[in-house]
C-alpha cells in the first residue's frame, strides 16, 4: 500500500507542475486582426485547426453561447466560420477568441462581411 501512495503522490506532483504551465491559445486577442467589438452585421471568422467534421459541432456549440451571435456556419475548406451578429449585443473579439479556443482551435482574423 505504501507503494501506491508514493506513486500517486509522484503522479499528482507531475500533473500539478504541468497544470501550472498550461499554454494559452496560440493567438492572443491583441494579435488577432479585426474589430474589438462586433456591431450588428455579418462577419467571417478565420479559424485554424478545424481538421474533422466533429470540429463543426464544437465551434458552433461554443459560438452560440455568446449573446448576439447567431447562425454560425463552418466552411472547413477555407477555415471560415460565418456568423451573424444581431440584437445590438456587441460581442467582443476576446469573447469570440475564447469561444474558439474553448472549442479547441485558433482564431486568426475577424473579417467584416461574409466571404
Amino acid at each position, binding site marked *: 500500500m505504501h507503494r501506491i501512495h508514493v506513486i500517486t503522490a509522484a503522479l499528482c506532483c507531475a*500533473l500539478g507542475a*504541468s497544470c501550472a504551465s498550461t499554454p494559452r491559445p496560440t493567438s492572443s486577442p491583441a494579435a488577432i486582426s479585426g474589430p474589438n467589438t462586433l456591431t450588428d452585421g455579418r462577419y467571417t471568422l478565420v479559424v485554424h485547426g478545424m481538421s*474533422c*467534421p466533429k*470540429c463543426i459541432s464544437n465551434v458552433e456549440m461554443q459560438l452560440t453561447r455568446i449573446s448576439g451571435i447567431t447562425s454560425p456556419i463552418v466552411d*472547413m475548406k477555407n477555415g471560415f466560420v460565418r456568423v451573424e451578429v444581431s440584437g445590438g449585443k456587441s460581442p467582443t473579439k476576446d469573447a469570440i477568441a475564447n469561444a474558439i479556443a474553448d472549442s*479547441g482551435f485558433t482564431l486568426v482574423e475577424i473579417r467584416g462581411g461574409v466571404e
Partner: protein
Amino acid sequence: MTRAINLAPLLLAATAAAQEMPGMPSATAPSPGVLIPRLQGRVWLFEDGQTLIEESVRLEYGLARDLSISAELPIYQGFFDAPRPSDGDIGFGDMDLLLELRILREDLNAIDTVRASLFAGAELPTASGGFAEPTLNPCFGGVFSSITGRHGFDVSGRFTFNTGEGMASPLFLTDLGDDFANLDAGYAYRIHPEAYGEERVAAWYLTVELNSVWTTGDNHEILVSPGLLIEAPTYAIELGVGIPLSMEVDPAPQVEFAFLAGVRLLF
C-alpha cells in the same frame, strides 16, 4: 485488473474530438462542459477456441479548455474452459479513470494541427466475476497527434504500476502481475472527402495501428490493427481487427484475432 484501453487492437479524443484512432489514445479532448460517451465492443478469439466478448462504456468530460476527465468501465462475457469463467458468465473489469492535460496545441492552417497531452490516473478495483484482478493500479502517459491534410499520425505511451499479485488463470498479458507499458502508433488516411467543401459530410478514414504491451516480466504482445473510421459532426463509428505480430504471453492464452466495433457521440 482490466486490460489497458490502448491495448485493444483498434480508440480516445483535444477539444476538437478530432479524428481519433479506434484502438489508441489521441491528443484530443472535449470542450469545457461537453460530454462525449463512447460505446465500444470487442470480440477476442484466443487459442483453443476460447472467446471473450468485451463491451466498454467510456465517458469523457471537458473540465476546462485543456483539461478533461474520463472514466471507462469494461464489461466481459466469457466463453472459456475451466478454470476460467464458464460459458456465458458476465463480469466487470477494473474501471479506468484518467485526468488528461493538453500541453501543446499548434494550429498551422485551416486543417493542419499538432497536439500533445499528458495523462495520469488509475485503474480502480471494480473487477468481478473472475475476468480480472480487482486492484488499484496507478498509471501515467502521453500522446502526440498530428494532422496534415488527409494524413493523421498518433503516437502514445502509457505505463501502469501493477499492484496486484497476478491471476492464477490470466486472460491477458496485463493480468500476470507485472508492471507494464503500452506503446502505440497509428496512421489515418482520409479517403472521403478528398477535400472538404462547404457542405457537411462525414469523413471516412482508413486506419492502421501498431499496438504493443511490454511487461517488466519480459513478456510482450504486438498487434497490427487495420480499421475504418467514419466521423460525422455529431457521431463517429469505428470498425477494426487486431492481428498478432509477436506474442510472448505465457501463461496467458494467445490472442489469435480480435474484432472491434464502436460508436462515439457528441453532446
